[in-house]
């Protein structure tokens, strides 16, 4: 499976943020999306997630069987600020989610099995989400996206504010998910991108550029990325 982006243009009034992006993402890989502040990483994700209109461009999911436009249900979007319905408990949120996706979830597990997988403790499962910590909310957001099993998972700096233990747990979850999925991971932290991601993609001056990291030490790669981003 591939996600093919062709000629994506997006402007905010007179400022053109995305200038005709052409890129192909492949399944089984985590892509680290690096870019400077204001380079348009979130805008790029918002376009993919059908959140904002754009002037031009197509997103195609290329499969062995068929080529088809990228649909809303193909995408999961994990935001840097976790968003969960705060009036529900974690169990209620998951129950609602499973209820309405009954016919689509392939190997449905019990609610507690999902909690176990995401390392959510028993005493926290029946607490209101409004009382959850930032990291716990993040886990819930990730869990729901994981159960939905989207073909493409967009991650907008999801590990930035997590403590080291939760961040490590989440990294393992992401690595376990990459098979059969396309994961695009936006971050400011180069170390994180280098340690977690299989490919590094730069969003700079409105276009996407892949950095070939083969035959390169980490230091050489860092220098190359910095050089490319300051051009």
């Amino acid at each position, binding site marked *: 499976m591939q996600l093919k982006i062709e000629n994506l243009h997006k402007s905010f009034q*007179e400022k053109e943020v995305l200038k005709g992006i052409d890129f192909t993402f492949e399944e089984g890989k985590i892509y680290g999306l690096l870019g400077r502040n204001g380079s348009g990483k979130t805008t790029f994700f918002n376009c993919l997630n059908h959140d904002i209109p754009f002037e031009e461009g197509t997103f195609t999911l290329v499969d062995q069987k068929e080529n088809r436009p990228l649909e809303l249900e193909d995408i999961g*979007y994990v935001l840097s600020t976790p*968003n969960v319905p705060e*009036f*529900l408990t974690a169990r209620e949120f998951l129950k609602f989610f499973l*209820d*309405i996706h009954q016919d689509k979830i392939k190997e449905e597990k019990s609610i507690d099995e999902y909690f176990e997988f995401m390392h959510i403790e028993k005493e926290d499962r029946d607490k209101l989400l*409004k*009382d959850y910590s930032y990291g716990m909310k993040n886990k819930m957001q990730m869990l729901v996206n994981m159960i939905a099993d989207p073909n493409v998972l967009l991650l907008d700096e999801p590990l930035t504010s997590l403590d080291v233990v939760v961040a490590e747990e989440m990294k393992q979850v992401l690595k376990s998910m990459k098979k059969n999925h396309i994961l695009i991971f936006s971050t400011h932290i180069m170390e994180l991108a280098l340690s977690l991601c299989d490919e590094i993609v730069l969003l700079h001056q409105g276009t996407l550029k892949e950095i070939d990291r083969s035959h390169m030490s980490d230091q050489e790669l860092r220098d190359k990325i910095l050089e490319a981003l300051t051009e």
Partner: protein
Amino acid sequence: MIKTWIQSFQIKNAYRVNTFIYSLKQLPLIGKVFKNALYGNTALKILGTFYSIIVELISTFLGKFLYLFFLIYLILPMYPSSDGSYFVHLLLFLTGAGALLNTYLFNPTKDKYYAMFTLKMDAKKYTLSDYYDRMLKVVIGFMPFTCLFGILSQVPVWICILLPFYVAAFKILVNVYFLEKYKRTGIVTDENHPVKGVWLWILFFLIFAYGLPYVQIVLPLSFSVLFLLLVVIGGIWGIFYLQKYSKYREIYKIILTNDNMNLAAYQTKNMEKKTVQKGIDVNTKIVSHKTGYAYFNELFVKRHSRILSKSAIKITWVMIGIFFFLTVFTLSFPVWKERINSILLVMLPYFVFIMYCINRGQEVCKAMFMNCDHSMLTYGFYRKPKVLLNLFKERLKSVILINLLPAFTLALGLVFLLYITGGTTQFLDYPILFFSILAMSIFFSVHHLVLYYLLQPYNQESETKSATYGIANGATYLFCYYMLKIRIPIFTFGCCTILFSILYCLISLFLVYRYAPKTFHLKN
């Protein structure tokens, strides 16, 4: 200090001018023509400055005019006698309440935060230059109207001229008291969170202002004048006190950075969000035995009962109380029967405004966004037409049901009141009256929810980003307000209301099903 005053004026002016340009950009259709570069456009900046001056003039004069006109001048004819002493008596006590409610010095505002903490201006110089500016506007703003309404109320001219100085001096003395209180006890006054004692004083001032003249106890003019002079002298002393006082920065450090003013909760939108979030019932024993969308919606409604059903029940009890009172009153004083009956027969349009006021639709939609859709709309599955419309159906049912309880009580009460005050010659008036009230309730429930789904006005930061939504809500209010003036027989207006409501609901539901999947997303 003059330099500080100029700087603070520049900050306020820049803020107003940019707000003016931002408002232009938010206008539907026209807004898209304006580009960001406009913020640097000199001609528009000058236009914005004119706008700023107009706002300044309005805030200086209009408020004072309305205050003196509505709260004093219009009230005077209600008292048995209304010589000059009544006017002075009312203003003398109302100033006490006003000074406590509006200290200005202890009001945590954005301008103060920007000036003292972001731009690191000298706190004392900034506070005093800003405060003197405000007090000067109090004197200038009151002067023409204390003279106008004072002379019309037979107050000697020299007292009319003295009154604005009295108002400013009283305000200064109240602030001196609060500043001294902080110095002695460390307790800071926050204008937005008055303590119980302050409310008691306000009540005391209001009772003395309006209550005493009602029983013909009014301060003699000579005593009032003596008091005015003493306060003015006290105010002059107060200015010296303000000049010597040194703890302004300490005080603002507390009121500008406490819970209501830290940067995260700095803007009103976040304050509002926090308030709505507090509405969540933390009782996890509240459960639902339904599934899917109905399960989700039922938990939302039950966990928000404080702002939804409980609020509707409270309104219902108030209505029962009013109808009980009116029934007893009508039976005790039969002479009023005919009057009440004639009012009821033509006052149905009046209830459009009442139904608008008691309908919980707008608050419900706000809670729906802040506590639910704000987070759920970031999930792709939640925006699928099927999910969206199924949930819309569940919500519509709940909102209609919640609002029907007070509507049913009002409808029944009105029919009963009509009957006991002599009834009507047209028997159909009873069912029409009853069903038109229910139709109004359903109309408002549908209207608020449909507007919310079609114009979803909020963005990720919970800011309202749709001027169209504001205009639509404003137009609804104006329409309902206009209805207060209409007098039409029950049968005619009731039939029109029922028909209009049915048509409106059908059309708007069609629009939601057709367009909401495209419109119901977070604004950017």
